[in-house]
């Protein structure tokens, strides 16, 4: 069963008539994770906002957990959790205050709200910080609390909009761990990210989005295969490049590309590890000792470039107001 279905969503912003969504369609199978991958300004946040009932599209339709988003937004709100791009919490209040407040707003009674707050603080390793105001929290802690707030009543469908943007590597790893746990619990998750690595790590399937449209869909592996298979890459001393290139060509059966600057030779290969061993043996016989050698699978970066013709540039999304764009690593 599909937990999220969006059909032909169109949304323009203001007088500029910038189409944030330009006929976007997607669906997510129940209990799976869809990674919505794209650069800033591609329409990821707008998609989430439409599905989470915050924004009414100009046209198109959508259902979440089988409920029509446009016709019954109140019903949708009961079954979703949303954690936005920046922690949407009351900074002046403590973690505890925030969670109990949201608990009450999800219509738990006072006792239940407190109990749930306790559980969630425990689960997200925030018990020690529970009585401190949010403004004293680190970025990672804020995100965890924000995520906790979206899980107060176990949502059927969870939306995470760039859950790790702006976090340091450690914060990101922690967040990945937390999300992984959630996914094992069986929630349907729509996750947006501009980190290609993140989509690869967390999502069952990926939708690549550019200029308000889904331009490719598949698992990480499928997308990588679209770009091509594995490549053999070796780096050698400058005076050995010609000889090494000839040997690589012999194994790969295709003309390798050579980057003289970094002395790197690379060529597509069909039978990865066998080719690697073969090349190593030939190089050894020719008394060439590679400085570096390996098989490289195409990264999602490569996928993005081959699909859109440009790299996943980071631009400041117009609808974000004052927030500065996070750097892509």
């Amino acid at each position, binding site marked *: 069963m599909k937990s999220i279905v969006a059909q032909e969503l169109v949304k323009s912003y203001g007088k500029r008539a910038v189409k944030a969504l330009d006929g976007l369609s997607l669906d997510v199978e129940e209990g799976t994770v869809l990674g919505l991958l794209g650069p800033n300004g591609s329409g990821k946040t707008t998609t989430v906002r439409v599905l989470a009932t915050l924004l009414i599209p100009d046209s198109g339709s959508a259902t979440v957990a089988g409920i029509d988003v446009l016709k019954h937004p109140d019903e949708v709100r009961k079954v979703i959790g*949303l954690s936005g791009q920046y922690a949407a919490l009351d900074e002046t209040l*403590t973690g505890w205050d925030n969670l109990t407040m*949201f608990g*009450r*707003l999800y219509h738990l009674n006072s006792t239940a709200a407190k109990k749930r707050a306790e559980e969630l603080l425990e689960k997200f390793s925030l018990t020690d910080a529970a009585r401190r105001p949010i403004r004293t929290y680190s970025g990672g802690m804020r995100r965890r609390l924000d995520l906790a707030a979206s899980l107060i009543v176990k949502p059927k469908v969870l939306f995470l909009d760039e859950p790790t943007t702006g976090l340091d590597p450690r914060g990101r790893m922690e967040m990945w761990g937390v999300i992984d746990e959630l996914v094992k619990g069986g929630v349907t998750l729509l996750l947006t990210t501009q980190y290609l690595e993140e989509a690869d790590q967390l999502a069952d399937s990926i939708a690549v989005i550019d200029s308000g449209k889904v331009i490719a869909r598949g698992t990480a592996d499928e997308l990588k295969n679209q770009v091509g298979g594995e490549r053999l890459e070796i780096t050698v001393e400058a005076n050995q490049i010609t000889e090494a290139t000839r040997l690589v060509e012999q194994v790969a059966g295709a003309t390798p590309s050579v980057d003289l600057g970094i002395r790197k030779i690379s060529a597509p290969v069909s039978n990865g590890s066998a080719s690697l061993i073969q090349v190593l043996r030939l190089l050894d016989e020719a008394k060439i000792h590679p400085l570096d050698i390996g098989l490289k699978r195409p990264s999602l970066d490569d996928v993005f470039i081959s699909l859109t013709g440009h790299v996943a540039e980071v631009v400041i999304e117009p609808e*974000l107001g004052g927030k500065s764009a996070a750097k892509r690593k």
Partner: protein
Amino acid sequence: MLQSVSDFLVITKRQLLQMIRIPEVLIFATIQPAMFVLLFRFVFGGAIDSGVKGGYVQLLMPGIFVQTVAFTLAATAVGLAADMQKGLIDRFRSLPISRSAVVIGRTVGDTLQNVVTLIVMGLVGFLVGWRPSSGPVKIFFGFLFLLAFGYSMSWIGVIIGLSVREERVAQNLVFMTVFPLTFLSNAFAPTTGMPKILQYFAEWNPVSTMVAACRELFGTENIFGATANSWPSQNPILMSLIYMFLLVAIFAPISVRKYVRVSK
């Protein structure tokens, strides 16, 4: 219905919690009007020949009370703009709560802050010679009037806060509009000195009708008003009630509508 009430109470409670968690905010919000009381009392009090029993401070206090509660608009606008900016409004909008809970909760919360502020100001006023002479019932109604006016102004703040979306813009905008409004009135000086056209404006100004109403309720003759002999200056209590009713009747529905459709 019961659910909606509980929803807005949670939002109001959040604001009361904020007061407890960061008492500085409330302290500064209270010190400022208290300082105004002292400044006006001692700087202008000597210069303005009030001609009322008990001196200028009797006329001043209703003026400063009204100015302070008029600024509830600012508290509401800035608070909501900050919530917008931080994405908190989005989170609230994604929750299964009544569509009016957040804005009602906010306006009620800001009004409760006024209770504290008015108590402190009243005490400071008393210390520097303010002696309302109309008896406890009328004095009580005077304060109730002030809270009601603050509450009505708060609804304009909702619209401003949800429209500008940035704390600092909200702050500048409301100060630019509310300050002139409170000074183009009978709050601090007689309107007699103003050009005729401004006199009419000043006397129709809701701030003036409120000040005049409060002076009446606190038992001081309003010698600063009624120079242009306009209807509102003759019937300040009725006119103020009409203004308050209009403010809420017009701006509350627009606010809720705005909240429902607002999106960053």
